[in-house]
């Protein structure tokens, strides 16, 4: 059983499937955008299934779809390492980079939606927003911190930075995840259930790491404290 799971995870097809899955929200977005631009009869043909009705507020729709998928994919990416250990399937690691990059992809679309439709590239206004409005500051932080991670996600950069340093740099995703949750929590008007849900997930995933690191350190200490075997 575990062998078949493991070989399934190693197959090229599972990775292709993951890509397709991660692109589904984007496909939905494109379909809705096309429906807005082309204004087809939505009760006919494929449109009936793709876009049963136009969202009344396209800005809301794009913002929420891209924001939701950014935070979901950040959480899923963060879950990979604990799940590998918990389920004993180390091969899950193959999915971590694409998932992280897709989180960044949706983050870019989310940011672009804001820049273009909400602010019409008025950079003076945008800068005022970032400086003045805590929820924008938090969202902007979450996004900016993902940029170096996306850029250094290649094998070449892992080699250049060295495994340890690369790993340390990529811990920025913890800060990014927290900032994303704070961004969400601060932006909702009154119903905080979803932001709290994501906050709880991120907290559990970060706590997992804390526990593992404390245990590791404790083990190292006891190993170091053991008296060296006497030299005969």
């Amino acid at each position: 059983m575990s062998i078949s799971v493991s070989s399934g995870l190693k197959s090229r097809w599972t990775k292709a499937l993951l890509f397709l899955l991660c692109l589904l929200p984007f496909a939905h977005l494109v379909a809705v955008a096309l429906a807005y631009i082309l204004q087809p009869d939505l009760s006919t043909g494929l449109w009936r299934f793709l876009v049963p009705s136009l969202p009344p507020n396209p800005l809301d729709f794009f913002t929420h779809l891209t924001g939701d998928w950014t935070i979901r994919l950040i959480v899923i990416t963060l879950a990979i390492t604990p799940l590998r250990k918990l389920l004993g399937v180390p091969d899950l690691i193959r999915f971590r980079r694409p998932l992280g990059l897709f989180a960044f992809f949706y983050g870019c679309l989310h940011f672009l939606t804001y820049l273009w439709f909400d602010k019409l590239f008025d950079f003076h206004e945008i800068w005022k927003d970032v400086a003045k409005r805590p929820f924008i500051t938090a969202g902007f932080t979450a996004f900016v911190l993902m940029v170096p991670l996306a850029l250094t996600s290649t094998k070449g950069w892992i080699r250049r930075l060295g495994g340890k340093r690369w790993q340390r740099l990529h811990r920025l995703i913890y800060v990014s995840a927290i900032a994303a949750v704070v961004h969400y929590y601060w932006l909702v008007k009154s119903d905080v259930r979803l932001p709290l849900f994501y906050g709880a997930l991120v907290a559990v995933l970060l706590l997992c790491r804390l526990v593992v690191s404390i245990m590791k350190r404790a083990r190292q200490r006891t190993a170091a404290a053991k008296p060296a075997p006497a030299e005969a």
Partner: protein
Amino acid sequence: MLIRRPADLRQRDVTPKQVYLDRRKFLAAAPAAFLTARELLSPRGEALAGTKLPNLTKSPLSTTEQMTSPDVVTHYNNFYEFGTSKNEPARYAQNFKTSPWTVSVEGDVVKPRKFSMDEILKLAPLEERIYRHRCVEAWSIVVPWIGYSLSALLNLVQPTAKAKYVAFESYWDLRQMPLAQPDKAGIEFPYVEGLRLDEAMHPLALLCVGMYGETLPPQDGAPVRLVVPWKYGFKSIKSIVKIKLVGSQPPTTWNMAGPREYGFYSNVNPEVDHPRWSQAKEQRLPSIFKNHPTQMFNGYASQVAGLYSGMDLRKNY
């Protein structure tokens, strides 16, 4: 460089007449958007109030701006009693029972009384008033509301000299509105709102019983709501059951939920930002761009600015 200015209104922005006329079928289909085709065939239209309101007078207070499609106005709602997502009221308010309905008008009045919906509908000639409606969230719509000035009702009960404010209360019933709880919606219930008496007596303040030629759909505040076009949308309380004239400023729901963000007055003001976003521009639905300049008092300054002369509108936001 030649920059082509798009026409304010393109053909595709106009709802085709047949779609508009058949809107109730679409509304009925909303609960199962993915089954649209099948749903259109099932006769669920009755779930919506949607009775034609005849003999409407056109009001000189109407704007000539392009009206928003009723499809948007009925599918993009802030009505937390029926869920906090904009698409939830259209889904969860469909079985809202709005008949029989009474509105109790009480407090500092000479003639307190309960009005049945029938009485409210006949209390004054029904007018169609096309108003701009600006949400505090920086989107706006243009809606042909139906009703008459709230002053008509208030004059009937005769406020006493003690009356300085008007407090409004929405219907609240957990059996019909299971989502209307503080731990789910993040606000207290029943929803309450308030106006100063002179604001409430202003001819623009509308007691509203319909829109687009018909009675109000449940998600838009059936059977009777307030429309105060120079204030942010949340002041225009929905599904009113109680109107009480009082001597001091009454508590209001959003002010209690976030006193720094939502003031008692909440007049539309492009110069006073919400702490979390700018109020200088708005998104005129269904446009995707937030590029429509917001006007002082939502464009009703010439009529209502006098109500606030001498007041610091930054403090009294």
